[in-house]
């Protein structure tokens, strides 16, 4: 009646570790429920160290930032007084914050969209290439992530966009004295392009793994039925990859929402605040204008938005079955 799946516990050379062999041989019937429950009671202790860490690293700081947000605490103006929800009222009139919020949403859509298109198409390409070339190709595709984000931002900011090197201008045919980052209407686009260049290899890797995990029989069957490659992709592959795509893109969306390194290093929010995302706007408030109270309140608002969004993602994923519980 009692079976132990020794296959699952085989190590690489096929041998089953001693402990498990013994367990398998002497395994008694499944434990009774009350014993089970007493075992479980002990398991909760395993969560304690992490829980304490979360308390120290997240809960307490968040309580503190909420506390700070109730003060007008501004170093440059030598103020430190309790004003209750005054900061939050100020946010309602803060056009800069509103623009930063809109811009951030726009940035998320653009980056995730571009990442997906690039990542999926290149993954298809890598998947369809003959094996030897494919490995080399993959190595080339992931090169951008070897450059740590701040370094990629510096590269694009100093060489690709800015005169006199202006590689981007030269490639596109613009005069080399024009910098994408210097004009309010194009600065955000410049950042988006760089972010896509720097992070899309991750999306590529995830989607490629998804592609390689597809059941080949289904694909072969469809091809025998006469489907062309585009039809195959559209009707068979994409639907099957929905869970992978959803998880990948929602992770990317959250990362982009919180994005700080690229916009800060490339433009610092300028020119004239036209490329501020939420993170950079709040950072500027708190650490450039040294307005800690107001910065804290902005941070709390951003936190609420992040919590709502991530909860929505989880609920959606739960309903669609992407995040199962794998319950025993």
């Amino acid at each position, binding site marked *: 009646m009692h079976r132990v799946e020794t296959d699952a516990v085989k190590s690489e050379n096929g041998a089953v570790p001693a402990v498990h062999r013994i367990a398998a041989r002497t395994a008694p019937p499944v434990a009774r429920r009350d014993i089970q429950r007493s075992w479980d009671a002990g398991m909760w202790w395993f969560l304690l160290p992490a829980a304490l860490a979360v308390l120290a690293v997240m809960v307490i700081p968040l309580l503190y930032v909420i506390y700070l947000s109730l003060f007008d605490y501004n170093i*440059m103006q030598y103020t430190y007084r309790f004003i209750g929800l005054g900061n939050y009222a100020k946010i309602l009139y803060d056009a800069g914050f509103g623009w930063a919020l809109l811009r951030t949403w726009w940035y998320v859509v653009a980056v995730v969209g571009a990442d997906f298109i690039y990542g999926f198409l290149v993954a298809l390409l890598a998947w369809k290439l003959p094996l030897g070339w494919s490995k080399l190709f993959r190595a080339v595709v992931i090169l951008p992530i070897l450059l740590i984000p701040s370094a990629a931002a510096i590269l694009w900011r100093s060489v690709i966009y800015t005169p006199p090197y202006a590689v981007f201008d030269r490639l596109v045919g613009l005069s080399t004295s024009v*910098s994408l980052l210097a004009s309010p209407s194009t600065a955000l686009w410049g950042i988006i392009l760089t972010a896509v260049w720097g992070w899309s290899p991750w999306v590529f890797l995830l989607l490629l793994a998804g592609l390689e995990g597809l059941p080949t029989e289904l694909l072969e069957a469809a091809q025998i039925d006469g489907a062309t490659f585009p039809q195959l992709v559209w009707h068979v592959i994409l639907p099957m990859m929905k869970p992978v795509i959803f998880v990948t893109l929602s992770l990317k969306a959250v990362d982009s929402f919180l994005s700080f390194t690229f916009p800060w290093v490339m433009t610092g929010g*300028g020119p004239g605040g036209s490329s501020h995302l939420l993170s950079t706007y709040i950072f500027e408030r708190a*650490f450039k*204008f*040294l307005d800690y109270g107001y910065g804290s309140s902005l941070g709390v608002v951003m936190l609420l938005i992040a919590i709502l969004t991530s909860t929505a993602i989880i609920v959606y994923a739960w309903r669609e079955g992407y995040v199962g519980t794998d319950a025993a």
Partner: protein
Amino acid sequence: MKTRREVLKDLTTLTVAAGAWGLAGGRGLAQTGKFPGVTLNVLSSSGHQQFNPLWNKVGELEQETGIKVALTRVPTAEIRQKIMQDLVVGTGQFDIYDTPDDTIFSASQYLMSLDPYIKKDFGSVEAWGKYAVPWALKAASIRGDVRLHPFYSGSVAGAYREKLFADPKNRADFKARFGYDLPAPPKTWKELIDAATFFTRQEKGEQVWGIVFPGKQDPGLNVFEMFVFEEGVTYLDDENHSLWGPKHPENQGKVTKVAELLHDLIYKYKVAPTTIPGMATNESVDMYLNDKAAMIVDVLYFSWDEIRSKKVTDRIGRSVSFQVPSSTGEGKGGIPFYWMFGVNAKCSQKDAAWAFLRWFMREDNLKLTLTKGIGVYVPTDMRLGEWAASENILPPAVVAAVRRAQVYRLNPQIGQVRNTVRTYVEKLDLNALTPAEFTKESGNAVEELMVRTGLAK
């Protein structure tokens, strides 16, 4: 396949290797000298590359005195916040601060008095400051006693391409078109605009501009400040009211004219590039050096070594510096920029800090920075300044501008005042504001700041 143990081994090896690196690369604690084992944390601007040769020499200081210097450098745009944050919040990360002019007043209340050390080494403050530019001493002792050590100053100046301005054909064409001799250098706004108009042209398909100047962050603000100061308008009156706010309507016309000049150079006369709002000094100098502009107005001393280097003069010829023109030709004096070293009052190594300052300010060390550093500056020590000018190390116009500069009123919020005006200058350069709006809004913003902080009655 790597097991967990092997991966852990890899990680440990990496960490051990990194640690060995670090220990091997680091210096051991010096056990000789007056201050064995002392480390001073110095905060300086990464824009001050003039002092690189000296920072590279701190090993000598350590050998002589045992003092180790841990240098942190942040961009100029961030250093004010870093200084104030450290002093006001009291985090005490640094012992010595390279303090910019507009932060000196606010920072000085947290800085150590240098008087006892000055008196010990020089006898009196007068003896010590005998050769310093007067306004520098005044700023250093804003709290009564000397809280900072001056050493660095500069100003905004213009430069023009000698080859272009001396060319006989150009001179003839200019005279034919405008009716007077090509002004070299331009001394009034009209001369500036005319010369810029003349030199704005298409050359081999590339746009060449008559004039270029920065519009971004500090450099952008500095250019505006220079022009407006030369018109006789500084920032605050004796009662801390904005000199072009609601209390001083008589100045608003002048400020609007300055705003118009800068704005129109870009958008009306079209003699300056529209990318100016995104350009700081490095970009504008680069444009000038690459033959894309005939004139430049900027904090030239940062690039003077490059501008007068053989590599550059071979390519584009010599450049002649000139003082920033005023509307009528009779300017009242520009704005000086100055930095001074201050010591944290809570510093636990006060004697060592003074020893560091003495070492840094030694004549041969400062001369090293002026000759071997990247860029130059105008030393507040006038003897050094004269020596540098005679060696042609400093652009004459910047030295003259520093001498003529107007001292502007300092108070705890002067940094914030300039911060505030800077955002408006950026908007003006972006054409997001009309010159009249600029004057009104920036004047009101400064006035409101002064009233809100209780400095203006």
